[in-house]
């Protein structure tokens, strides 16, 4: 997947609060795909995930004035998305459609798969709540399977600095996952 970049998050937030088109465009670029992944893991349905992403961003437009920065921006977006996912589940329940319908031809999702999907959503939330250099390093190292040297070259850092960055990134990710697990 494409990993977009966010400039200075504080600057971005100020732009969002001022309703600047460029800031909202940047937010969509930076977090749109991650938000989709988050919703997809929690619903298992591509169309629903697409809708939830859009509803989440529109709700974010309404609520950005109240965002105080206590949580990372992406974590805040995921908080909104969680409510939208809950709405979707209620809607499906009313229509007697299992949330997991898209996964296995209408069969209810086994608990194990359900837990895994929730864990994957938590990983997406934690990863995109990390500083950008942490995220880029982790993705390059563990998702793209690059060696430390290649990661260092991509990030324009020394080998030693990259090793240290990866260690801090890992630690931050695991800490966030632990925090999210406690929610």
């Amino acid at each position, binding site marked *: 997947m494409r990993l977009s970049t966010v400039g200075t998050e504080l600057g971005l937030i100020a732009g969002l609060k001022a309703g600047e088109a460029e800031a909202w465009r940047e937010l969509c670029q930076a977090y749109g795909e991650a938000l989709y*992944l988050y919703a997809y893991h929690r619903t298992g349905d591509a169309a629903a995930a697409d809708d939830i992403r*859009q509803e989440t961003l529109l709700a974010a*437009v309404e609520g950005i004035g109240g965002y105080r920065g206590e949580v990372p921006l992406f974590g805040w977006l995921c908080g909104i998305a969680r409510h939208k996912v809950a709405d979707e589940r209620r809607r499906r329940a009313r229509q007697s459609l299992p949330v997991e319908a898209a996964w296995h031809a209408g069969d209810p999702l086994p608990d194990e798969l359900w837990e895994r999907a929730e864990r*994957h959503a938590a990983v997406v939330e934690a990863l995109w709540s990390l500083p950008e250099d942490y995220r880029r390093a*982790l993705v390059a190292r*563990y*998702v793209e399977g690059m060696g430390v040297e290649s990661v260092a070259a991509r990030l324009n850092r020394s080998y030693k600095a990259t090793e240290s960055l990866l260690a801090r990134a890992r630690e931050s990710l*695991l800490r966030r996952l632990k925090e999210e697990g406690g929610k």
Partner: protein
Amino acid sequence: MNDRDLERLLREALGAEARPMSEAQVGEVVKRAAVQARPAPRFPLWAIAASGACLAGLVLLALSPAPESWFRIIAVMAMVGNLALSPLAALVLVRSRR
């Protein structure tokens, strides 16, 4: 969690194909943000002031020793003025939101 577990977890979590946002979706968000950022409309104060002045003039006239025919003319003018002011103010309000 060791490196291999982390690698597996990240690959699984990011393995699904992410659907990019369409230009229409981004446009909708941007448009909504622009509308949201506009200041809340305020009823034009001049309309309230003018309306108040009409009514105050009417009360003063009623209390004054002016002939009844005068009072009738001014009362009708004040009523028409007040009736006209509200739609006029609404029109100004709507135009300022465009």
